[in-house]
């Protein structure tokens, strides 16, 4: 029973893996589609806008960092809970399914989430559980999705939802009860939707697994009949449909083959193009069908075509043996013996190569056996990108776009565990590069802080020198002296002290006149002048006394202004002294840098461990694969040698029989042959 279910399970796993690209693209598209029906809405928050910019380029790590940054700097305004859906989608794409699960669950626990977002969160949660292989939880979450609302909000998500529900029904392995609902789901999907094709195909695989061969044939035939002309499809899905159509033909051909309907099998397989992606399998199956149908010439022709191609995948290694077998079936023992001998030599050489590869396998050799693809790369001679390089092309789930350069890895490379481990290794190298950059950046911050400290010290020294030159303490003493004298003059009502400049000039003139008059004789010629002087002096004294209050007020006002200026000067000076005495801001930065350097070192250690584990995982997978291939090749080799020995015996015996019979004939003719 287990074997019966295995192909179907593998089919489902494959389907899910294959749709990985599409799934994440749909998440990507839907996030934006949900912002507006027809075209994207402008980001209302620069942090969110930058996150979307990275997100839509597939830079999940940078996008998640940007979202984290925006959240740390006060959150994202104006987009409701939508950024959370985007973050969850990013986490799914970045392989953080557990974090995505927590995020969607937290979102659903919130009370004030709008119905559309809640609905999509249920969908994504269902998808997370599906990716985690928790079918029951996935079904529970998907059942909570309001299909009509999802269809109105985002049609692409709605189609994926139908597909996931269909997949769940298929997983129940209860064909009699699930056939009806499953058929309804398929019918709800539009003809040109890839989800419909995959669901239909998987239904056929399930029927096959359940022993319903007729049903599987009907489903596959229907899928082939419904295949739309590639020109009528969007370019994004045309290739996918073409591949699925060929896959359906191959599967149908194999079903006919299994049922012994060889002619029909050949007719179906003939329609798979020779330059198509599945032509190797089709040719081999065609050879099998032709051989079983007694048309060994056609079978050999197909096998010869295969033999002329590079035997790229491990399963194709059976071609040399099958070719020899077919020649034997054509009753050509001599040629068959040569073919078996060639097959055995091929297997020996292959085993030696695999053995050497196994012995020398390390990460570098493994990476050398893979051809990575760089974004927008058209030059075949361009240097290959290395793991961890950001320009390396990845799918929407972060899996690197890679082709095997060594055929022995082809099948392993197609498997999900290897893909995931390779993705992890690539991501870990990217993280390592990112941490390296930060390490350099932090070192430059250290240099920067040192420079700032040094410049600060220079400025402090210059400031101190400038202050010393200004002799600021003397200013304060002078201010105190001014105050004392003004107060004293006020107390003594010393009008002369508060005289204005004009009054002082006049007083000086009067004093000069008085001095001149004193030196002149006191007679009639000077009497009139003395009287004039006394009148002027009397007027001057009255004027000074009269303006005493005004002048005193002006002096006090100036003193207050001086006080204020001196207060400002003193407080600024104190502040400057404080600044000069303490490095608080620079110290805080230095502290933050030191803490981040410590964190960086811790994460580095974790990264090294994770890298070592992932490397080991990959190498172990390859070792296991190579060992398995060697076992298979040993089987082919054994069979080839057995057949070789058998045919050699057979030829020897028939030759001997011919020699024994010969004496009864002409005798000499047999010896010549």
């Amino acid at each position, binding site marked *: 029973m287990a074997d019966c279910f295995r192909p179907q399970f593998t089919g489902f796993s494959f389907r899910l893996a294959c749709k990985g690209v599409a799934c994440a693209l749909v998440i990507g598209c839907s996030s934006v589609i949900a912002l507006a029906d027809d075209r994207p809405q402008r980001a209302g928050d620069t942090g969110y806008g*930058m996150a979307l910019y990275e997100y839509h*380029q*597939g830079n999940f790590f940078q996008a998640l960092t940007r979202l*984290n940054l925006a959240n740390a700097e006060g959150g994202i305004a104006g987009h409701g809970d939508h950024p959370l859906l985007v973050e969850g989608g990013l986490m799914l794409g970045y392989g953080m399914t557990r974090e995505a699960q927590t995020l969607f669950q937290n979102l659903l626990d919130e009370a004030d989430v709008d119905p559309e977002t809640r609905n999509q969160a249920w969908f994504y949660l269902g998808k997370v559980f599906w990716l985690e292989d928790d079918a029951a939880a996935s079904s529970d979450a998907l059942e909570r999705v309001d299909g009509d609302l999802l269809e109105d909000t985002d049609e692409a998500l709605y189609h994926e939802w139908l597909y996931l529900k269909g997949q769940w029904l298929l997983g129940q392995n209860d064909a009699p009860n699930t056939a009806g609902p499953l058929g309804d789901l398929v019918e709800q999907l539009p003809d040109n939707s890839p989800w419909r094709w995959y669901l239909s195909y998987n239904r056929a695989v399930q029927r096959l697994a359940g022993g319903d061969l007729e049903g599987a044939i009907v489903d596959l035939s229907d899928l082939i009949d419904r295949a739309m002309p590639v020109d009528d499809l969007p370019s994004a899905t045309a290739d996918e449909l073409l591949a699925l159509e060929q896959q359906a033909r191959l599967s149908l051909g194999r079903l006919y083959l299994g049922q012994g309907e060889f002619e029909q099998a050949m007719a179906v397989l003939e329609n798979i193009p020779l330059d198509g992606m599945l032509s190797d399998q089709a040719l*081999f199956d065609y050879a099998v069908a032709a051989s079983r149908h007694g048309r060994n010439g056609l079978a050999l022709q197909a096998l010869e075509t295969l033999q002329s191609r590079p035997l790229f995948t491990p399963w194709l290694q059976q071609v040399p043996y099958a070719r020899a077998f077919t020649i034997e079936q054509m009753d050509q023992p001599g040629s068959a013996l040569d073919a078996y001998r060639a097959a055995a030599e091929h297997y020996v050489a292959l085993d030696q190569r695999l053995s050497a590869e196994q012995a020398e396998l390390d990460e570098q050799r493994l990476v050398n056996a893979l051809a990575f693809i760089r974004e927008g790369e058209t030059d075949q001679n361009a240097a290959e990108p290395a793991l961890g390089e950001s320009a390396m092309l990845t799918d929407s789930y972060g899996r690197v776009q890679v082709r095997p350069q060594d055929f022995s890895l082809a099948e392993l490379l*197609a498997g999900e565990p290897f893909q995931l481990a390779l993705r992890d290794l690539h991501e870990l190298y990217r993280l390592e590069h990112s941490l390296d950059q930060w390490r350099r950046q932090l070192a430059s911050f250290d240099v920067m802080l040192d420079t700032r400290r040094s410049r600060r010290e220079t400025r402090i020294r210059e400031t101190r020198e400038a202050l010393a030159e200004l002799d600021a303490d003397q200013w304060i003493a002078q201010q105190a002296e001014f105050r004392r004298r003004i107060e004293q003059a006020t107390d003594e009502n010393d009008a002369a002290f508060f005289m204005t400049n004009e009054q002082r000039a006049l007083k000086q003139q009067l004093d000069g006149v008085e001095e001149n008059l004193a030196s002149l004789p006191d007679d009639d010629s000077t009497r009139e002048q003395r009287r004039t002087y006394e009148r002027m002096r009397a007027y001057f004294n009255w004027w000074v006394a009269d303006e005493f209050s005004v002048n005193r007020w002006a002096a006090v006002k100036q003193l207050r202004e001086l006080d204020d200026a001196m207060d400002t000067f003193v407080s600024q000076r104190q502040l400057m002294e404080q600044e000069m005495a303490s490095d608080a801001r620079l110290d805080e930065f230095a502290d933050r840098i030191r803490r981040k350097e410590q*964190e960086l070192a811790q994460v580095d250690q974790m990264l090294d461990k994770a890298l070592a584990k992932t490397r080991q995982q990959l190498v172990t997978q390859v070792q296991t694969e190579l060992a398995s291939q060697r076992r298979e090749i040993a089987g082919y080799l054994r069979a080839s040698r057995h057949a070789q020995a058998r045919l050699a015996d057979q030829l020897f015996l028939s030759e001997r029989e011919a020699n024994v019979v010969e004496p009864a004939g002409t005798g000499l003719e047999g010896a010549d042959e």
Partner: protein
Amino acid sequence: MMMTLRTVQRLIAVQTLINRQVLCFLCVLLFSSVPASAQDASDESAEEGSVALSVEELKKKVIRLNRDLFILEEDLLFPASTQFAVFLSLDTGQFLKLDAVKLKLNDDTVASHLYTDRQLKALQRGGMQRLHIGNLKTGSHEVTVFVEGMGPDNRAYKQAATLQFEKGTSTAALEVRIRDRSSNYQPEVAIVEWE
């Protein structure tokens, strides 16, 4: 949803099992591989799970660290009082295929960028590019942006926009906004201030 060789290889992998069943008549002896025991498979799966878990945990830590380091970098290099940033958004698609942008601040070129298809798509889907971040003192400044691309009817398109603005004591952010103008079927380039 491009069909890559990897997808094809997966198709191959899926069918291999069926293949092997069908082809037994040819080489029964050949399929002698020994299946791994259930215990081995379980250990392997647990090991894979633990690696995946530690990788996920590590990613989470690095994202947080990355965030903190970005904040530290901004605080250190671009303090809020002098920070000045220019963003670019694209609300267009019909009338302009953006090729390049050059940004001048007070007659000095501070940023220039050539766009890849992937970056353009990201902008068209609502993304916002930070074209420039730096420090600027308070006072009056002038920023000019030069936009080049393919305009309507596949004609080379060039346009510039200028904005005089006052930089205060808090962070200043401008946005170069390129959008379709349906009134004259031309793209429009404007620089707006973020509050």
